């Protein structure tokens, strides 16, 4: 395969954005051949997106700056390709399918690029149907795009790119917003496309998942430089396993050489649950009489000491459920009680004194001119006194590792930093119950693990609940799992009990991970679930 002309050939590429002083990437050299799948790995800010933009022409067309070195696509310099040529050669799937989709109907979305190339109408329709058929999503053809689930949006995004028959496919963290089963299905399709002869460049920090589809080569970036380039096996020994999520067995092996990590949660211990804080009683919900029911007959309670992970597929109703605790939504049937008071008899402002809720998307809440003022907003509304407020803001900033950004404007920070500020702005309110919607989305592995450690080791919370697609996050931190599927509670129980039932997990589109398998294997010895670094020390050498 390697004797063919490379699809992408990058030589000594250095790029500096016009608004920055430091180069975003230094001396990048890489080569990708047709039919190969390359996995590009690195923490946020490592330069992955910059490399992609240089290949697909957004640099220099949209993002300006100074570029040195060269990029050749099929032997021709990228700057010599016209935009029409380039976008038929390189297909790009953006990080978030929400950002990829521009039209209102699936048919139009898949046809969009072809319409812009002014192909005849009949040919477009034929190509659209071919693509939909190939991806096995013909049933979505007439659907409205905004009503699709996260996984469906992703695959429609892929269809829109594939219909243009690109020879190179760039995938920018395509798994970020997908449930595990959808992520797995997407990965399988990417492998299949590579097998058909397309050169696929996959940027992803869920390395553990991405390795399942046998990438031909792996590139590992740190601070804009290539640190490793070669076979996946080599990466296992080179990449920093604190910063990139490697398979659990590898981490377990390598972590033996390090001291055992200390993690002592301050929120409750299993078996010692206190008073009931939240109670869902026969809760049903729908937005209006002419829409379908989103939640069906939900019953559970949150008690003092609970650390709950709420798992379930895209569109299962997880966010809708959590919004009920705060009274942002009121049940259509049944009732939700917070500290004994039914939500229909209370206001959101009252509930906010007890419950802190971090929304999924930070850009929907950040507004202040500085991080300090952003963090003071909630506590001021709750009328905390100055000294308490100051103390809590300082703690919140330390927990998310952003003390030095205190005076920076939140809107100028990176997405990952904004997400952490949004979490801190709720932490500073020192609520008894903390709820987080996808707290790890858009975060590096190292960052999210360290702030989750920080939050859960800090005394003060009576209960914590988080929504996640990341099974490893759930098994590492949660003492209890709620599994939601199609608006019904499919399971509610201690983490080890619920996660042992593989069939149940699969029925809720949750797939067992290498860490789960490793934990299950050693459960008789360890007695509980733990992270791979702890397993390394808890399990005696064979």
């Amino acid at each position, binding site marked *: 395969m390697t004797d063919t002309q490379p699809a992408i050939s990058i030589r000594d590429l250095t790029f500096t954005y016009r608004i920055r002083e430091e180069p975003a990437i230094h001396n990048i050299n890489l080569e990708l051949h047709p039919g190969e799948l390359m996995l590009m790995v690195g923490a946020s800010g490592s330069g992955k997106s910059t490399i992609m933009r240089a290949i697909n022409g957004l640099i220099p067309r949209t993002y300006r700056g100074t570029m040195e070195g060269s990029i050749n696509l099929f032997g021709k310099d990228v700057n010599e390709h016209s935009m029409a040529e380039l976008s038929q050669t390189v297909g790009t799937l953006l990080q978030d399918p929400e950002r990829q989709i521009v039209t209102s109907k699936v048919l139009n979305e898949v046809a*969009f690029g072809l319409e812009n190339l002014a192909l005849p*109408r009949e040919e477009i329709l034929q190509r659209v149907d071919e693509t939909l058929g190939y991806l096995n999503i013909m049933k979505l053809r007439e659907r409205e795009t905004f009503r699709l689930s996260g996984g469906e949006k992703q695959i429609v995004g892929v269809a829109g790119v594939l219909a243009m028959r690109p020879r190179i496919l760039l995938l920018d963290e395509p798994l970020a917003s997908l449930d595990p089963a959808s992520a797995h299905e997407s990965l399988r399709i990417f492998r299949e496309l590579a097998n058909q002869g397309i050169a696929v460049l996959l940027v992803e920090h869920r390395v553990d998942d991405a390795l399942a589809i046998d990438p031909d080569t792996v590139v590992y970036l740190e601070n804009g430089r290539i640190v490793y380039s070669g076979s996946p096996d080599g990466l296992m020994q080179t990449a920093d396993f604190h910063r990139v999520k490697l398979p659990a067995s590898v981490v377990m092996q390598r972590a033996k050489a390090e001291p055992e990590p200390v993690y002592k949660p301050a929120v409750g211990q299993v078996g010692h649950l206190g008073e009931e804080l939240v109670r869902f009683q026969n809760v049903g919900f729908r937005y209006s009489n002419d829409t379908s029911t989103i939640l069906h007959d939900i019953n559970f309670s949150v008690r003092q000491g609970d650390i709950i992970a709420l798992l379930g597929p895209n569109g299962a109703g997880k966010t809708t459920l959590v919004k009920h605790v705060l009274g942002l939504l009121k049940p259509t049937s049944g009732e939700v009680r917070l500290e004994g008071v039914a939500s229909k008899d209370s206001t959101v402002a009252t509930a906010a004194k007890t419950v802190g809720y971090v929304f999924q998307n930070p850009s929907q809440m950040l507004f202040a001119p500085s991080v300090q003022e952003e963090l003071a907003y909630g506590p001021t509304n709750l009328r905390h006194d100055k000294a308490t407020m100051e103390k809590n803001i300082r703690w919140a900033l330390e927990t998310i590792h952003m003390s030095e950004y205190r005076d920076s404007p939140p809107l100028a920070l990176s997405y990952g930093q904004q997400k952490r500020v949004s979490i801190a702005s709720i932490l500073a309110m020192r609520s008894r119950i903390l709820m987080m919607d996808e707290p790890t989305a858009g975060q590096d592995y190292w960052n999210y693990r360290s702030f989750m450690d920080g939050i859960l080791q800090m005394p003060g919370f009576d209960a914590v609940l988080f929504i996640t697609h990341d099974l490893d996050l759930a098994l590492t931190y949660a003492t209890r799992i709620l599994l939601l599927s199609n608006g019904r509670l499919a399971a509610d129980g201690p983490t080890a009990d619920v996660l042992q039932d593989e069939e149940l997990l699969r029925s809720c589109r949750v797939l067992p991970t290498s860490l789960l398998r490793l934990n299950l294997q050693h459960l008789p010895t360890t007695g509980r679930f733990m992270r791979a670094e702890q397993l390394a020390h808890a399990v005696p050498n064979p």
Partner: protein
Amino acid sequence: MLVAWKYKFRNSFIDTFDPRARWIVSFLVLASVLNFWDFRFIIFFFALSMLQVKLTKLTWEETKRAWTFIIVLVVFIVGINAFVFGRGGPALLGDIEPHVFWERVILLPFGWSWTLNLTAEKTAFAITQIVRMLTVASLFFIIPWTMDPSLYGVTFGGMGLPYRFAFAMDLAFRFVPTLARDFQVTLDAQKARGFEIERLDGGVVATIRKVAPLLVPVVMNAIIAGEDIVNAMDLRCFGLKERTWIGKLTYQTRDYVLIAFGITLLVVSLVLNHVFGLGEFWVPQWLIDLAG
């Protein structure tokens, strides 16, 4: 990404027309209404507009929020403005000898004074203006519920507008409900941080400060979303050349009949107004008598 309005196919009489014909006729009717300030003519157009609403098979339940919004807006802003100040209409109101119901002189500092009065003419003008605005609003407000959003682009393109403009209209139409959704999410997120919309008191500056947590994220998100859309469109070749629209629209006989009706209406209106001088502002005699 952008969300769409609550369109659904209702198999109504209106659904059988080409969307281009509907736009064209709506504008022809609009141009016709603008010829008249006489309530007796305007009520005809109002009836026509209501007939269209009726024929869409829209239910009250679906549209009551939009209706409430329009009625409140028109009655309070346009109505009261016209009623109290007599503004926003034909200049001729100033020339008519007013028949006064009620009058009060308000003394202002520096020896200025201001006469506030209600007259027969202002009353007639306010009512005429309200009905006129409601006619125009109801002509167009049914569009989100009754036109297929996937045809917005080809509709405008098919009316001869440049493709860039036509696609921009497509995006603009879907931008409005997207903004509404984003606003709701931000409102919820700030409520979770203890924001209370009920506590919006104090002066103008204080109020603006208090709504900043709502407005800043919504505006910023709109800007970011705009950039996303531009990137996504660039990556798929938008703007290189005249594009194909896969949506297909064909005029039927009924569409030509509809357009012919619209043109006739406009011609008749122009003739009545400019040739026969009909349709000028009219105050019923009984209202003048009432003022004495």
